[in-house]
């Protein structure tokens, strides 16, 4: 049967998928893939700062991811070329984070775990935190769902209905930062965006409504987590990347089987 550590890994991954499905759908619809990467990369810098100031790594990751997410939206909103701006910030944050971590004295940091996650070592308490954070972020998305959808379609259309598209965008950035902070330990900074985008993209092929796509993305994320954890155990491969490979296979399958 499954070992405890594998069960914990699966529970953690499933908890994360709860919010990753709907959030990932928005990331896909709004073409924020690169933006998601930037926010995730920034979390590394957050970890470095958290270690330097001896505060919680999760809080550090959350704060810096949020700060970078909000500044990127502000910059791209002001007519800077979004693509280039995000690229510069994304990679600078990652590199700066890695440099900063090398300065932190007295702490041995597992870079591999930061970049690719270490889902097999999650504790029961951490699983609980993942679920709590994930459900909270999901509730926020559900609460704002209609407004977010309208704002995603068109800023003016949203405004005519009294919805401030910018504010909705900030809420999405907040949820994204929270998910990055939650997912950092599980899947690592480099693969967080993959876990958002790939299941959502796979769900697109089967969905007839935004809601159905969000739910299916969660289902696919869950399936990829279970397959990924089991396969990485059987094949002795790194778990985070194996989960993403499983999600990628689901996407490939959706291209063949999907109807839309």
């Amino acid at each position, binding site marked *: 049967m499954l070992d405890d550590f594998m069960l914990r890994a699966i529970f953690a991954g499933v908890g994360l998928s709860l919010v990753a499905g709907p959030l990932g759908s928005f990331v*896909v619809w709004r073409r924020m893939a690169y933006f998601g990467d930037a926010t995730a990369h920034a979390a590394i810098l957050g970890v470095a700062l958290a270690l330097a100031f001896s505060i919680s790594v999760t809080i550090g990751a959350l704060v810096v991811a949020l700060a970078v997410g909000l500044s990127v939206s502000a910059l791209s909103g002001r007519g800077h070329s979004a693509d280039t701006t995000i690229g510069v910030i994304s990679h600078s944050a990652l590199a700066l984070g890695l440099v900063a971590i090398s300065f932190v004295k007295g702490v041995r940091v597992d870079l591999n775990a930061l970049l690719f996650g270490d889902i097999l070592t999650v504790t029961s308490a951490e699983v609980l935190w993942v679920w709590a954070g994930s459900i909270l972020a999901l509730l926020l998305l559900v609460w704002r769902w209609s407004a977010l959808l309208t704002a995603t379609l*068109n800023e*003016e259309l949203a405004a005519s*209905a009294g919805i401030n*598209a910018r504010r909705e965008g900030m809420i999405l950035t907040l949820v994204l930062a929270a998910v990055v902070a939650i997912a950092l330990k599980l899947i690592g900074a480099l693969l967080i965006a993959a876990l958002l985008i790939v299941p959502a993209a796979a769900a697109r092929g089967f969905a007839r409504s935004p809601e159905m*796509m969000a739910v299916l993305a969660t289902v696919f994320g869950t399936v990829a987590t279970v397959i990924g954890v089991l396969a990485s155990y059987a094949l002795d491969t790194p778990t985070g990347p194996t989960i993403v490979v499983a999600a990628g296979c689901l996407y490939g399958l959706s291209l063949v089987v999907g109807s*839309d």
Partner: protein
Amino acid sequence: MNLIETREMSIHYGDEVVLENVNFGISSGEIVTLVGPNGSGKSTLVRALLGVVPISNGSVVKQDGLKIGYVPQKLMIDKTMPLSVARFLALPGQKPTSETDAVMARLGIVGLQDRQMSELSGGQFQRILLARALLAQPEILILDEPTQGLDQPGVAAFYRIIEEVRQDLGCAILLVSHDLHVVMSASDRVICLNGHVCCEGSPQVVSAAPEYRALFGVGTGGTLALYRHDHDHEHGHTHEEADNAG
């Protein structure tokens, strides 16, 4: 009392002056057509009325709780978003089925509910956009170049529907157009915009105004062809309209 108005409003993007000292207002039940060449600030004025663009000087004042129906110039729905007509019409809030059915019957688009937005023809798409705007039970309907991409019979049919709908609802209408061949004959006022209000008045007055002729005279020979019902039976394209569409 205007439903919505701008008071000496100016909008600058950096050093570029998009709109300068615009006093614009529309009152209950009024039909106003806003014409102007591309880049004259028409869409910016609409965006300012909707409150999505920062105003450099002056102000926008609207009645408390004003219900706005908005038909955008273009609505790009990312093809990664699955969206049925019924779901779109229910954004941002679910409407009673009876109302949705009534509006769809009114616009001649019954039976499209289950179709995906991406499967619609241009004419159907525009009518769905209009249907969604009408479901807000607007006091003012703002149409930003709503007939882009429609062929001429499609344009005529669309304006006929708008006139009918407005007779039913009695809402104010703000129609934005760069197509000077098609200005609603029912317009109470035409406003000619080019960074500022060049001239305004009844369609006949504006078409005769020297400012208007100076702005549009070259391309159109100074004529303002008003859309009239007797255009309904023309199904051909004129050369000029074909050129404009391209």
